[in-house]
């Protein structure tokens, strides 16, 4: 099984534990991730102010993926969503594809419809499959309880992402967590947005969006909150202390990536999975796997 890895801008600079654990898990599951150094931004940061250029930038990545003939797999939910939206838009709007191709021609690239864009987690579920993943598990995590945070762009717009989750009752992350034997907490605020999208415009507002979920999970004493996106991480791990301070309280919500949880189940060590770089550390989990 082979896929083209879309690292994006943020993961390879700020979330090396996510990248490391994703690569290790793919290795164990027999997925070959192909790197292409010329893939870079997905265009998302420009969309709010200049969606024409954002679309050209996304089309550039789609054109590169097409040349590889591989599915394009992202670790960042915003990248996966942006590229999937661009593919959908361009495939349905030939005049937009024509405009974009006029801008890509000088770069020696051409967009044509047909690239499959997906998030790594969804790729593991759909292409590797739960059965095969379960069969490779060597450790039992049944004493732990994890709280998934699906985030928005991983699920929505549903008409473009196209499943397998129902955004009103998502299950994909839970199924993968359960494959390790661990329990899943589908807490009341499961579907809350992290607020990361407004952090730049209004820190207080972003903090109150993330804070409600952090407060709830703090009280539920889960082993850790589980993420699949570096932007959600900015809010829940990076901003956790600042948000608690603003709310005049203290939080101890450990934050991990789904690939780190899977990796533990697959027998990888905490070091191999980059747990040293987690700032809101899952102490109970790490104590159980001290090598």
């Amino acid at each position, binding site marked *: 099984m082979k896929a083209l890895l879309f690292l994006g801008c943020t993961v390879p600079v700020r979330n090396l534990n996510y990248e490391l654990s994703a690569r290790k898990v793919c290795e164990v599951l027999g997925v070959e991730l192909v790197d292409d*150094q010329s893939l*870079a931004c997905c265009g998302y940061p420009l969309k*709010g102010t200049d969606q024409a250029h954002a679309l050209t*930038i996304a089309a550039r990545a789609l054109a590169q993926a097409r040349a590889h003939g591989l599915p394009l797999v992202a670790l960042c939910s915003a990248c996966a969503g942006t590229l999937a939206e661009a593919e959908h838009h361009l495939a349905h709007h030939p005049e937009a594809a024509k405009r974009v191709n006029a801008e890509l021609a000088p770069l020696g690239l051409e967009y044509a419809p047909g690239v499959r864009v997906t998030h790594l987690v969804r790729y593991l579920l759909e292409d590797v499959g739960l059965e095969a993943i379960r069969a490779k598990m060597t450790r039992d995590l049944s004493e732990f309880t994890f709280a998934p945070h699906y985030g*928005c762009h991983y699920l929505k*717009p549903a008409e473009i992402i196209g499943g397998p989750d129902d955004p*009103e009752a998502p299950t994909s992350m839970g199924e993968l967590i359960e494959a390790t034997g661990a329990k899943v907490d589908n807490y009341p605020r499961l579907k809350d*947005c992290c607020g990361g999208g*407004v952090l730049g*415009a209004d820190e207080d507002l972003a903090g109150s969006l993330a804070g409600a979920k952090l407060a709830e999970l703090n009280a539920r004493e889960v082993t850790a909150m589980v993420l699949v996106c570096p932007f959600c991480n900015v809010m829940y791990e990076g901003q956790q202390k600042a948000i608690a301070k603003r709310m005049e309280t203290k939080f101890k919500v450990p934050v991990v990536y789904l690939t780190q949880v899977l990796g533990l189940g697959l027998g990888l060590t905490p070091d191999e999975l980059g747990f040293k770089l987690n700032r809101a550390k899952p102490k109970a989990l790490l104590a159980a796997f001290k090598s």
Partner: protein
Amino acid sequence: MRLNDCDPGFKHEVAAEPGGAGIRACFACAACSARCPVGANRPAYDPRRIIRLTLLGRREEVLASPLIWLCSSCYSCGEVCPQQVRFTEVLTAIKNIAAREGHAPPSAKITAELLAKQGRLLEVTDFENDKRSGLGLPPVQQRPEDFQAILGLKPSEGEAGEEPR
């Protein structure tokens, strides 16, 4: 509010932007507003109200409002809309017009400059690549040329601004 402050063409202008056409289908049910997490925290932010003002032609009021930049892009409004308005996309259309008229927050300009300078949002130097190789990860490179061509921007002299959060 005087009648001649209204621009009846504004709704057509929004509808003509990519993603903007959905605004024509809105029947003002407010399902979006009820579901919006930003509105729940900031009552002044109200998707249906932004649509109403746009349909009424209150062009300057909408484009200059700091509220339009508070959407977190969570797509919750679109999932509950009975009319497939796709408000997140409609608002993107409105913000794009606002940006062309100089209403974008300062961080927006920096984003385009960073992409032209680095080909990515966050800078990659030897420091980042040393850290990566210490973990056994392959190096990443900055190849800004394509981005300069697409954006029609040469990187500005000297240092680019601070990186956005």
